[in-house]
């Protein structure tokens, strides 16, 4: 999971999970590819039918499994294939962003962008910009932090284990 931890790998390469809606932003990413636009290779794109399908749980899940950033792309307001999906997205993500901040996740690790199917160029600029910003922030590495946090439990677990009593010894 943590390719950026490898020794000698040079500069930190952020890992960014990108949820793109099928009808606009994914099409734009496709267009960027067909047009041979060069942009940072740090995103792992997950195609969803609508940005409104992205439950805030997905964003937290991505972070907790090692993403350094999460990008969410959908159709411009008024253009959602399902009419209202991206409005729901906007409302949810405005609140999620506040919550992430309160939980110490830096601004810039999560980003919501409206990118239409014709905006291949925008995919390039948004991804490049986000990669640069997250690179400057450094690794989030939640899986590593979880392990670290739990290291305070280890000594005691061993000592209690050692004091086990077999049933035969008592009564």
């Amino acid at each position, binding site marked *: 999971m943590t390719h950026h931890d490898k020794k000698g790998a040079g500069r930190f390469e952020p890992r960014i999970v990108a949820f793109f809606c099928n009808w606009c932003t994914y099409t734009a990413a496709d267009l960027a590819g067909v047009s041979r636009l060069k942009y940072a290779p740090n995103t792992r794109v997950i195609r969803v039918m609508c940005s409104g399908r992205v439950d*805030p749980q997905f964003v*937290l899940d991505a972070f907790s499994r090692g993403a350094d950033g999460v990008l969410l792309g959908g159709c411009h307001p008024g253009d959602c294939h399902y009419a209202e999906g991206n409005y729901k997205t906007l*409302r949810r993500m405005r609140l999620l962003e506040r919550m992430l901040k309160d*939980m110490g996740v830096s601004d810039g690790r999560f980003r919501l962008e409206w990118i239409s199917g014709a905006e291949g160029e925008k995919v390039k600029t948004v991804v490049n910009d986000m990669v640069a910003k997250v690179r400057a922030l450094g690794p989030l590495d939640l899986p590593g932090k979880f392990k670290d946090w739990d290291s305070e439990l280890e000594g005691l677990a061993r000592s209690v284990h050692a004091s086990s009593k077999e049933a035969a010894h008592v009564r």
Partner: protein
Amino acid sequence: MSAKPKVGFYWCASCGGCEEAVVDLAEGVLDVVAAVDIVLWPVAMDFKRSDVEGMADKSMTVCFINGAVRTSEQEEMVRMLRKKAQFVISFGSCANSGGIPGLANQFSKETILKFVYEDCPGVDNSARTRPQTRMKDEGDRSLHLPVFRDMVRSLDQVIDVDYYLPGCPPTPKLIMGGVQALLSGKLPAKGTVLSPDVALCDECPRKDSKPTDLALTEFKRPHLAPIDPEKCILAQGFLCMGPATRSGCEALCVKGNMPCSGCFGPTSKVRDQGAKLVSCLAGSIAAKETPEIDKVLSGIPDPVGSFYRYGLPKSMLKRRIDN
């Protein structure tokens, strides 16, 4: 020795309400007491740590443990109890997901200790003395205190748990149901939460007045505005956690004309109660433009405290990250 099942009750970081809940079984408690041998119940009877140490492994049929885990002492006791008991029931919100004590995961250990021993109004401690884990007193006796861990954990983040009784505290009906299942040996799959696996709205007497499209235009706080005693509380603009909270309490708070604050935790389909509540409640706002949306959301001054009130340690992020 009698052949009655041996039962234990233990508490960690909790308020004592879960212990009250056992007493609240009223006459029911007498049936339970007659059917079992209580071999550990520090809050009501005199038991020492050595009594637990002296028990044979697996000699206790079931141990009910309430409270979150914050100190090395709690950690050690629950590990010991896990070895002594055949079944461990995580009892109440704090054991299940960290509960109110779990909200401390928003702050670093240093922030907490500094506030409590230095900055808190009313503290007179100019020498800035902090509790130490080991010290000698004037009589040269050595004293020990448990270690205060860096974060709060749910019981199942420390030991293996067999079943969960949800609630702050669990209701007498659910407790009796759980005890009867254990005594009769009719046990559900390991890891089951012993309460119906549907959202609270499903058993709420006001559910018929909850519109499909809530189209919320403001969030109000219950101490600042009157609550209509008939209509869905969420539809009135108060944060009601019913849509993403497990049922089983029979809508106790709503029946008392207060919004649900989410104490039963999520259903099995939800992995992060707070994020799911964000999804449901923010998604139900009517506004479409960012400034208006933000204005409506400003009615929720403390999202983490509201949406993770009973479960920050079990959230996907577990605690504030930059501390």
